[in-house]
């Protein structure tokens, strides 16, 4: 695999052809559009990586009078800020993706679940939605989009907690199955996609699946928008091809002294310098070495950083942001935090870290939702790679 992976400008290219794209796509059969999405290899850009075409297909096949399309704009993962930019600069792409999805699955109502902290985007978005409704009317699409404001809880970015929140209940994840495509918002079939995912569907509708598939590698196709932060001279938002090694990433974005990269935010993995070369940014699949999925957060740490403090910070976050519903997440996160504090202070022996690693593994396999399951990612990767920093 010799491929020169590059920076791109697909998502943020401001193309004013919403109506054309919409008309062109609506003229095709539902199966054709879904097959394009499937063959493009597009996977969810929120981090979990569920194939988007399949999600639409399942929702289209579900039988119900009412269905919904929801754009998940509750961008809460620490170190992620790309959806905000997409919604600021190219919201019409997201709306177009939603409208086509609605047309295919048979939904008349859509929502943008907007992160509480992004309320400054609301009035601008409302105006754009209003214009967009006009375009929908011209194209004869019976679909309306509303904005639902989140209230700041991280857990509400989890899709089923998001539904609960929209239904006026506590934002707590549901048991799965049933999955959203059968039983989502208001217990109706629902497609819920990340902001970036929807924007990509626009590119696929416009340029065709082949163009999209040409980008990236193997199971990780297309481009991805990354939020680059930490010890970098050029923090910001970058669109890159999938499949890049971390070494190449650090060469491009690091400050020359990069000790570790946290891929995927607080719920992602910490990769130490010695593994940069073998780690590839992409969905888990048939890639060589280790592939790491990410919702887009790339935090770079240089040698001046204490990885104990980094982990402490993440655990503080989880202790606060767990919904508190399930035991492994509610109590486990508290124990991990108190545990590393106790080891640091010498109140517990260093082997207590092994008990905590076992706990993190138990949390990974028993927690009810992605939040509790993924605490182990950052915990284990930091403790295993920087054990001495935890103790001394």
């Amino acid at each position: 695999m010799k491929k020169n992976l590059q920076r791109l400008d697909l998502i943020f290219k401001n193309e004013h052809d919403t109506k054309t794209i919409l008309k062109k796509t609506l003229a095709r059969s539902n199966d054709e559009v879904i097959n394009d999405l499937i063959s493009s290899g597009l996977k969810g850009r929120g981090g979990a990586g569920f194939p988007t075409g399949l999600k639409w297909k399942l929702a289209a096949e579900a039988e119900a009078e009412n269905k919904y399309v929801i754009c998940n704009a509750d961008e809460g993962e620490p170190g992620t800020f790309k959806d905000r930019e997409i919604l600021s600069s190219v919201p019409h792409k997201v709306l177009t993706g939603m409208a086509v999805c609605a047309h295919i699955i048979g939904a008349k109502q859509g929502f943008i679940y907007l992160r509480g902290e992004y309320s400054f985007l609301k009035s601008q978005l409302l105006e754009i939605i209003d214009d967009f409704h006009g375009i929908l009317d011209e194209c004869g699409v019976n679909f309306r989009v509303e904005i639902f404001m989140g209230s700041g809880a991280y857990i509400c970015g989890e899709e089923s907690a998001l539904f609960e929140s929209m239904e006026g209940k506590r934002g707590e994840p549901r048991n799965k199955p049933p999955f959203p495509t059968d039983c989502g918002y208001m217990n109706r079939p629902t497609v819920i996609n990340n902001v970036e995912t929807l924007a990509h569907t626009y590119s696929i509708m416009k340029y065709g699946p082949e163009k999209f598939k040409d980008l990236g590698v193997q199971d990780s196709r297309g481009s991805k928008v990354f939020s680059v932060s930490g010890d970098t001279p050029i923090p910001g938002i970058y669109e890159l091809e999938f499949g890049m090694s971390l070494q190449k990433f650090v060469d491009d974005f690091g400050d020359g002294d990069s000790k570790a990269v946290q891929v995927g935010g607080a719920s992602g993995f910490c990769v130490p310098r010695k593994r940069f070369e073998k780690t590839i940014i992409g969905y888990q699949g048939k890639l060589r070495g280790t592939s790491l999925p990410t919702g887009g957060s790339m935090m770079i740490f240089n040698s001046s950083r204490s990885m104990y403090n980094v982990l402490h910070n993440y655990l503080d976050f989880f202790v606060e942001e767990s919904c508190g519903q399930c035991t492994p997440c509610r109590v486990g996160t508290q124990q991990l935090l108190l545990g590393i504090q106790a080891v640091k202070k010498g109140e517990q022996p260093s082997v207590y870290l092994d008990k905590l690693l076992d706990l993190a593994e138990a949390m990974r396999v028993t927690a009810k939702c992605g939040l509790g399951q993924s605490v182990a990612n950052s915990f284990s990767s930091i403790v295993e790679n920087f054990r001495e920093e935890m103790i001394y």
Partner: protein
Amino acid sequence: MSDKINLKIDNIAVSINGGSTILEAARKINIRIPTLCYHEDLCVAGNCRVCVVEQAGSDRLLPACAMPVSEGMEIHTNSMKVRNARKQIVELLVSEHRADCTRCYKNGKCELQELASEYIVGENGFIDLVAHKGYTIDNFSPSIIKDDSKCIRCQRCVRTCDQLQSISALTVAHKGEHMKISSFFEKPMFEVVCTNCGQCVNRCPTGALTEKTYLDEVWSSLNSERKHVVVQTAPAVRIALGEALGMPAGEIVTGKMVSALRRLGFSSVLDTDFTADLTIIEEGNELLHRLKKVVKDKDDSVKLPMTTSCSPGWVKFIEHAFPEYLPNVSTAKSPQQMFGALAKTFYANKIGVEPENMVSVSIMPCTAKKYEADRPEMRSSGYKDVDYVLTTRELALMIKQAGIDFASLPDDEFDSIMGESSGAAVIFGATGGVMEAALRTAYEVVTGREVPFENLEITPVRGMESIREANIKIENVLPEWDFLEGVELKTCVAHGLSNAKKIMEAVRDGKAEYHFIEIMACPGGCLGGGGQPIPTSPAIRKKRSEAIYAEDRHKPIRKSHENPEVMHLYEEFLKEPLGHVSHKLLHTHYTERNRY
């Protein structure tokens, strides 16, 4: 979803209806999977995670209570991975639970304690989280004590309060480490809409929710030379007490209970069933009086439908939720409070005891009765009519403390007077029982004939269906009741406050017309009360119900108005139903309460 699904659990093949869970499938083949947040009466939460099991080929473990079975599944409930995960979860729960077990009211009856002992949670557990949190105990309610330091956040209480009772006095507040079970604005339980029904207490796996106990007070009264301690026992106690003392559900232990109470030192062992019969006379006559006012006199000031008033959880519920319907609630006091008022007047006089030297104790299947006895209206004798209310569970504790071998006790009889009762009184303990008892009497008063049901068993009002309706045509009435000729008496029975709410909304919205509604706050009626032995389940309540109706069938007297002691009470003391003395001692009024 009724097609059979075939799967294997621990290499044992099982076939079960589609839509069933792994837990149900495992139970079918007698494989026990531990649970904490799961309860048969409640919707599945899947939040404690102790029931996790391993599916072949799957990395993550599955919650057995929430995961539906699928064809060809291979489940392992006892793999290394499962045991390890389960032990860690139990250790986590113990770390956030104040585990001072020997000082806990639920010691020996705590589901977490049981699991902790099964998984040998030893010294090498996690860091104690309780010390960090500064918990306080809410013990202001006369009925329920809430101790957050023992709460494991399984939310059984929250689901009970919402789903079964539609109250939501208990809800989840905050998130993450601060997540807790709380009430409106975190006010104490006695200030919020809590009806004191105690259904949460019945379902709490730990000692986080318990009844407020009055054992010390009762023991000290029994110990006092000066005090004459009378005790009354509610109908539903005698069919459930055995469960708390090692006997199977549905055992009728009336005689043993009376023996035990005598052995404990109660001076008079009397029966709430006696005043249940009395309630029927008063309440039945009130119903006929209301019917006369409405049907014959066209008096708008008198309200129908009339609802029962013997369930104090229901009374507090309607005071909070439907205060505009308070005039519809029967003014008759509950049997407990009728008993209390008579004990310190009529009975004290009869046996020559000064009322101030009398201590009136009641044994109830109920925690709300503790609250009811505390209501300021309940002092018509000039004293607190009922001094202490103990639950069935507390009585069982007293019997254990006294070293009484309950199972080997001989049967004994209640004291006379106020100890005699009819079968109609016994069935007060089951949902539909008050209705049936009232109809047995009212129908006969109006027509001079017995109710037209075989063996007096009014089956349409029996059973466990949440809401039941029965219409009874009144024909060939006695001359004085001619205005009721041909009237179809419309009745309705509901149990569980969520069903009560449905009925009241239907009445309010004009969607249902009834003359008489029986409502019991607890599922199954008093037999499923918040003071009854733990655990409770539909199967246990069914057995208790069968026992109650068996007790009725075997009673020589089946109708309240044929209870000779009650007849005697009217002749000698009350003179007539709804009369002057009755009004003073046996009837009450209600208070509108806030809605939050």
